């Protein structure tokens, strides 16, 4: 089931044989039934489409057959009202994982309305939510486009105007390229009182998420002098999201690191420019081209050292960094505002459903009915 009451992939439905189907006739569904997911991701609702007549359900779903005089689509919307949802939230059980049981589902409060009125409400909500959902999908696409545009701008600004044949292996522009603790880093882990160490999962594209740092013992830290980080170093992910790079901020000066490529920029390269460069789609392409590993992508120090990069004077790098920031900031701001707007649209959708099914708005006068 999809969150919007549809069927995800009809071809992915499992099939049973006729004998099993006969044995479970009680849970076979009819085209006017409503199906509700009651497993850990409970709350998804759909009206059974015609071509699924007689289909069966697995244990994570429940069949709600509307009584005479109850319109299935009205029931579909009523089950998504805030009252219904809150009733479920307070009634969920399950020792190991949350799940909705049939009993509280059957006790869900449903507003009473004449059949004609139910139909009007359902029609109204069908039309209104479709509109909202279309806007939200459009916004989602817009966010993707803006992110793409952002990446393209960065690409052009880091390497634009330079002939790739004039690129220089990274190793000649930096003071060193090395690697964090690779051999059994877990042997040095301590619960507390140690030295923090960055791992791959802490490094995102252009930022470091220091919320979940491991700690290694002082002994381990002393032994791994070479992988101590200094503010201004770049750390690059080797395994998993291979290639994501971030500058080490001042507050992480002196921490250690595990299985990351460490690029120490030296005097020829400024860290922020290097960060944009290493996160650019040009660099990503190099990383995926040179990533090896039979199970997951894995990028090594040698490949990083050899990566050809453009060579600019420091002043030019600074100019480019500010140009990038100037170009990127409004895009990032727009993206974050669109996300806020999306929240509002979601809220509006929920409020509209609740108001309509409980009769708080008169759908005959509201728009949506032609």
């Amino acid at each position, binding site marked *: 089931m999809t969150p919007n009451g549809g069927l995800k992939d009809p071809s992915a439905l499992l099939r049973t044989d006729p004998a099993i189907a006969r044995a479970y006739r009680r849970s076979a569904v009819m085209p006017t039934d409503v199906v509700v997911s009651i497993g850990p991701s409970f709350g998804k609702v759909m009206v059974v489409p015609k071509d699924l007549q007689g289909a069966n359900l697995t244990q994570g779903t429940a069949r709600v057959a509307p009584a005479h005089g109850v319109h299935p689509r009205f029931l579909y919307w009523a089950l998504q009202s805030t009252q219904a949802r809150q009733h479920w939230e307070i009634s969920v059980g399950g020792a190991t994982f949350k799940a909705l049981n049939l009993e509280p589902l059957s006790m869900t409060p449903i507003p009473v309305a004449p059949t004609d009125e139910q139909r009007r409400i359902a029609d109204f909500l069908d039309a209104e939510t479709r*509109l909202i959902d279309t806007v939200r999908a459009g916004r989602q696409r*817009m966010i993707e*486009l803006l992110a793409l545009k952002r990446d393209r701008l960065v690409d*052009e600004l880091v390497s634009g105007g330079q002939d790739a044949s004039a690129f220089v*292996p990274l190793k000649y522009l930096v003071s060193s390229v090395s690697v964090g603790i690779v051999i059994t880093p877990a042997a040095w882990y301590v619960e507390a009182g140690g030295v923090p160490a960055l791992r791959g999962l802490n490094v995102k594209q252009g930022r470091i998420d220091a919320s979940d740092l491991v700690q290694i013992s002082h002994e381990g830290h002393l032994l791994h002098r070479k992988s101590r980080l200094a503010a201004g170093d770049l750390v690059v992910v080797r395994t998993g999201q291979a290639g994501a790079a971030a500058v080490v901020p001042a507050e992480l000066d002196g921490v250690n690191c595990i299985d990351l490529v460490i690029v120490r920029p030296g005097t020829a390269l400024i860290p922020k420019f290097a960060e944009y460069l290493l996160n650019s*789609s040009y660099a990503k392409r190099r990383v*995926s081209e040179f990533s*090896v590993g039979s*199970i997951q992508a894995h990028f090594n120090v040698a490949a990083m050292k050899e990566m050809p990069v453009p060579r600019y004077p420091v002043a030019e790098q600074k100019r480019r960094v500010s140009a990038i920031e100037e170009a990127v900031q409004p895009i990032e701001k727009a993206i974050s505002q669109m996300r806020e707007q999306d929240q509002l649209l979601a809220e509006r959708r929920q409020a509209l459903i609740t108001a309509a099914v409980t009769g708080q708005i008169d759908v005959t006068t509201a728009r949506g009915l032609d």
Partner: protein
Amino acid sequence: MSTDHQKLANFIWSVADLLRGDYKQSEYGRVILPLTVLRRLDWVLEPTKDAVLARYEQLKAAGVQNMDPVLRKTAGLTFYNTSQLNFRNLLADQDHVATNLRSYIGGFSPGAVDVLDKYGFDAQITRLDEAGLLYQVVSKFVEIDLRPDVVSNHQMGYLFEELVRKFSEISNETAGEHFTPREVIKLMVNLLLAPDERDLVTPGIVRKIYDPACGTGGMLSEAQDHIEKHNAHATIEVYGQELNGETYAICRSDMMMKGGDPNKIAYGNSFSQDGHDGERFDYMLANPPFGVEWKKVEKFIKDEAARGHAGRFGAGLPRINDGSFLFLQHMISKMKRPEDGGSRLAIVFNGSPLFTGAAGSGESEIRRWILENDMLEGIVALPDQLFYNTGISTYFWILTNRKAPERRKKVVLLDGRDYWVKMRKSLGDKRKMLNADHIASLTKAYVDALAIAEGPAHEQHGKVKDFRTTDFGYQRITVERPLRLRFEITEETLALLAEAKPLLRYADSEALLSTAKTLTGTAASTRSEFAMKLAALGKLPAPAEKAVWDAFSISDPEGEIQTDRKGNPLPDADLRDNENVPLNEDIHDYLKREVLPHVPDAWIDEPKTKIGFEIPFTRHFYVYEPPRPLSEIDTEIKDLEAKIQHLLGEVTK
């Protein structure tokens, strides 16, 4: 292929209903498979049973020790049974079925008993007996008509494979461990045999096929079928070896039921107990386990490797945690000499053997040996998620010592990663499969590889590349840069001196440190100048003097170049770098062109140069997808925004 064997297999499998409750589903095969084997063997032996028994009594009376050859001959088969009982009458005494069954099994010839032994069937007899099921289960099998004139050897093979497949699929824990998907085998056999198609139709040919990790024998059967389909008059002898007892038993009984010689399937580790020592084969194929440690046979293999090319592992040894290359070397050792017709082989590998191991390592040396001897014909990359027990990417390596003239000194890489369809229902890790079209098209692409690689218009052009064998080689050079130092006595360098190990063993270290402390602030840009300033420390023993110099020397890109006694610059270990230079390029030219423009003072430490070989498969097929142009993105953003604005107007009207 008829479906009769499937119906029969379903019927046989239905006997397992009796086991429900006493056996787990995943254990059904342990009862069903050996009983099917027993039933079939009994039917096969029936026509000559009386003659065998009579002959046996006769030989026994005459005191003959080695009755085996005569009895085989009497039975007209590679096995026989000398028990007075047969499958039907061992049930006559309901209370002693277990005893009778054991006595009946004991009457089989050694090769056949061995199979039942490896199944661990004796334990199942006890278990069935204790559960009160033995009589019922055996009775069911008595009813099953597997007479050779009703079910041919060929059909019996299919039937048994069907049962094995059911068993494998039902027991998720073992599914696929020794089971290569059928369609993968088909492709592999095609690639192995396709170039020889014309040769294989010659009437009366004899070909030997071998799989050193044969599992249940699926690859061997498929290869045999393939040739026999082309040529009904071919004699195909299949040889295999398998480490896992139960799997071995399945494979061997499959051979017995198809009328093959079960003795050609050996039990044990192919490395340490080679079951076919000295034998050579026309075709070989294997899907050895990936990344399996060879520690258990380490001594054996190292001893053999020490004998150089007199043994199988003369080219080198892979790392201890991956025996893949050992299988390949083992197979290469069993190739027929080219003058005797030569051999072809195909093996399934994961990605590691392509590139694991730096220049000079065992893996690199093995690749080098294979390529320098022009044995690698091609590598085919397969889609991931194709095997039951792993979702990783896999590759066929195809080797031969009789390359077609146009393929000599060449290697074909075929990228088959996009040839798959999604399975309706996944089986273990297997979510993708090859269909008949994929198999046909990959086979054709492999056969026509050179033409496709040369023809840019061919639709598969992007999937096929050919290389010279030397293209995979490189010279790994060590690039050194001079050690540049300045010299300083500071608090920091004094602390380093105090921590230095040689000083801990030096009796007068206290005095040395306090004298040195008085010199704090002393600095020099050259060694000779600093030496003079250090005279105040007096004459020191060599280790202490070295410690002093080590502590007070500071690496400095602007510092004095340090030299040895002959005046040659000393290398700086921290600045040491490596470069991979193509095999056919002069390393000095390379240095001049690629390195010196950036670091003019660099030089090559030539004795450290090593030759390496690697096959960066995915890199050769990497296709750059250029990002969309900004203007296109912008247009789409604007259009979309206008639409959203309109809709938002509707929403909040």
